[in-house]
């Protein structure tokens, strides 16, 4: 098994505040790797640092090539898809326009996306801002799946969604992961157990643990210490509504 992404001593800052302190980890080139950690420890910032959306230092290597000096759009063009934490669909653009903007290749995978999210096909002409949260999340995930990427960075895709939609989104990621490795930030530990092979645990802006996802979540004492929760319980407040 080889590595698609290698992060070595990356720190990142927002304004003058350092929010990631020298994280190092690697992401295998198959399957889903989970990023775990309590709220505010720097998971989102780690993804944004990799993408160059916030200022970062250190080495980031994608498929053997350094990308830490590149501007965001060039990193993405090298085959990195991004599903941001709060969906960030373009509210005043239609679903079709949101998807069209994301298409980078001559033959985008429209059929695959239509198969995963038939809802979106029906709602092509609807303004993305008027979609439900779940539908917006589907647009956001779909944007990343339209291209043949080498890696997806996916940030809390099930946040605030109803159980049925959580399932649908998790299913889509599972299907996508057969062809593209995914680095997944996820607080819903059920979803992590279902999807992730490996997990990285971040605390205080650093990687404090890494290993097999199920083993980490199975270790009660470890999960309580690193995530502040029991492995069978939701990781935070918004997890409760997700298991009806």
């Amino acid at each position, binding site marked *: 098994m080889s590595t698609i992404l290698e992060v070595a001593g990356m720190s990142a800052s927002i304004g003058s505040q350092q929010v990631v302190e020298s994280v190092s980890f690697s992401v295998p080139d198959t399957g889903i790797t989970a990023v775990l950690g309590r709220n505010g420890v720097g998971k989102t910032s780690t993804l944004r640092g990799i993408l160059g959306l916030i200022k970062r230092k250190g080495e980031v290597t994608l498929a053997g090539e350094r990308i830490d000096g590149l*501007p965001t759009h060039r990193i993405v063009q090298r085959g990195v898809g991004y599903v941001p934490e709060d969906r*960030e669909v*373009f509210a005043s*653009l239609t679903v079709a326009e949101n998807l*069209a903007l*994301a298409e*980078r290749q001559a033959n985008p995978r429209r059929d695959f996306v239509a198969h995963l999210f038939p809802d979106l096909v029906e709602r092509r002409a609807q303004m993305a801002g008027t979609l439900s949260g779940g539908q917006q999340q589907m647009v956001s995930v779909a*944007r990343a799946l339209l291209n043949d990427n080498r890696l997806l960075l996916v940030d809390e895709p099930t946040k605030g969604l109803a159980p049925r939609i959580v399932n649908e989104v998790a299913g889509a990621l599972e299907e996508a992961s057969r062809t593209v490795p995914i680095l997944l930030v996820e607080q819903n530990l059920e979803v992590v157990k279902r999807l992730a092979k490996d997990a990285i645990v971040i605390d205080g802006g650093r990687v404090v643990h890494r290993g097999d996802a199920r083993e980490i979540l199975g270790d009660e004492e470890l999960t309580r210490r690193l995530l502040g929760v029991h492995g069978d319980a939701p990781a935070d407040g918004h997890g409760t509504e997700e298991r009806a």
Partner: protein
Amino acid sequence: MSTLVLVLVTGVGLGALYFLVASGLSLIYGLMHVLNFAHGVFLTLGAFLGWEVASRIGATGWPAFLLSILVGGLVGTAFATVTELALIRPLYERHIEQVLVTVGLAFAAVALFEGIWGSDPIFITGPAWLDETTTLLGARIPNVYFVLMIAATALLASLVVFLRYTRYGMIIRAGVENRAMVTALGIDVKKSFTLVFAIGGSAAGVGGVLAAHYTGYVSAHLGQTLLIFAFIVTVIGGLGSLSGAAIASVLVAVLQQLANYYLGGTGDLIVVVALAVVLLVRPRGLLGRRPA
């Protein structure tokens, strides 16, 4: 009655001129968060070079007029593009420095124009028809106002089509909403920065030629005078909103004309009062988006 018609129609015509300037300001601010104080320079340069070309030909008829409009538009486009590439782009994301650069350019350009063309206004003549009047509901309206309205309507229509139906238009609309996410889709948003400068510059350049025929002269200060009103219009319409700028252009100019005729020439004062009221009551302007 005919006076009211005159005031209203000339107000709309003046609003059309404001829109030629404000549309670019609004697009640039919406996408780049830069208040472009150099926008008046594009206009003045368009007016001067448009006039130069027309007067070199030595003609005052329609062909010369249309040619000067073309030249004004091209000069505005070229100068705005160079401004973006040479001065704005190197200061990417440093909004305060970018604004300061445009202020500096505005001052320098006015001085340069005075050096080249002198500080006195140069009176110009165009097609005689422009100065003649057409009677509308009993009011005798100078024809130049209709030309302004046609130009602004054509601009608005092409901008709407461009923004709505082209990929770059889509990128600009998306970028006004969330620029970082546009880059996170693999799109080089800087190209569209240059593009909005070019578009704004072309509208301002055409506006410069028309403004010269509207006022009857070209001068180094033509652009900066209009720019003040265009800024007010942009703020009242809601920074970054094109339709807001269009509506506010007409509202402000009509209000200004009404006050000038019926309240003893207090038009400019009324506009400033309107600005103050909008800033107090609805700081994001008529159609501006709520600050995130």
